[in-house]
């Protein structure tokens, strides 16, 4: 097929990077850490103040046309960074709580994943649990009206609870081997590149207590534990754009 995507530093040397391509989406995730296991952790950082070039050469499309482009950017200084552990709130779906923790944004139980489709109908909610380590740039180095970069390392895992598979959301599907209804097994979502984003000052008000806006871009893989559902659903979900709000209540 040909084509080349490379990230060059200001001396023209190429920087080690993982490239994910799916359909029209491309992610270039540079990793300069000593080992692959440390990608996305504080040791993995482009040199601040240095100019980098993202070079795309003769990338073929399915129609046989080619794309070449060159983008230059300068890495900003973010040190010293803060790594904080964040816990995923338990909405109480698997415990059968009457008072589910609902999202202020869409009114649905938080961290519950419901799939709408013709094959499966509207599925029961799979409850995600886990935690993540997010890395925040040094806030005092940024102006109050500037977005503050955040990063979540690749390999961050959210574990979803198992759900019964039902055709059109109604008819139970039988697992022949077990003689029981087919269950998905743990439904895991794992990030495959470092998720990056920003804490953005609230654009609608100057009030200091107003929640900041959050924007996070991530590439994830979805995987289920049971073999037959794994084959049906396992896939990469590149370029997930998440929007949200961040605020402090009772020290959390």
């Amino acid at each position: 097929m040909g084509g080349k995507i490379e990230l060059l530093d200001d001396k023209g040397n190429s920087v080690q990077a993982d490239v994910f391509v799916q359909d029209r989406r491309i992610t270039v995730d540079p990793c300069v850490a000593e080992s692959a296991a440390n990608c996305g952790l504080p040791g993995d950082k482009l040199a601040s103040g240095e100019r980098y070039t993202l070079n795309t050469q003769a990338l073929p499309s399915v129609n046989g046309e080619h794309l070449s482009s060159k983008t230059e950017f300068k890495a900003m200084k973010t040190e010293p960074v803060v790594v904080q552990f964040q816990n995923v709130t338990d909405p109480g779906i698997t415990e059968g709580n009457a008072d589910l923790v609902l999202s202020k944004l869409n009114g649905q139980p938080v961290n519950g994943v419901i799939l709408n489709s013709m094959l499966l109908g509207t599925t029961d909610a799979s409850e995600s649990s886990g935690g993540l380590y997010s890395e925040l740039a040094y806030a005092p180095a940024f102006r109050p009206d500037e977005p503050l970069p955040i990063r979540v390392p690749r390999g961050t895992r959210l574990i979803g609870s198992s759900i019964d598979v039902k055709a059109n959301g109604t008819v139970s599907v039988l697992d022949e081997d077990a003689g029981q209804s087919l269950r998905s097994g743990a439904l895991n979502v794992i990030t495959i590149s470092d998720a990056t984003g920003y804490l953005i000052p609230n654009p609608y008000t100057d009030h200091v207590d107003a929640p900041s806006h959050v924007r996070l871009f991530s590439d994830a893989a979805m995987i289920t534990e049971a073999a037959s559902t794994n084959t049906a659903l396992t896939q990469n979900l590149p370029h997930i754009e998440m929007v949200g709000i961040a605020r402090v209540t009772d020290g959390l």
Partner: protein
Amino acid sequence: MAVLKPNLLGREVADSTVAFQITADTSIDAQMEAFDNRAPDRDAPKLVSWSPGSDGKYDFMPDRDAMHRPGDPVTLFFDEPVLALSVESGVIQKAGASEVPVK
């Protein structure tokens, strides 16, 4: 909040709206220790299923090779994402004793 549109069985695009809520303890002590308490993932990926699959598992098609047409891909499903770089050197297909180039 995000919208996910996963493929189902390669036939249908499902949609899902997810609203995550994550909280962090803002006390300094908890956050200073957070990174040191991190538990790295040391489990290797495991093969969950593959196509054409092992012979003799199902009565209706015990010989799985008979299902596999020339040109069909061999598909492997793992329980976690595999690093793309490792696949190039880590996956080898053999015909008898000789290696078959894979893409």
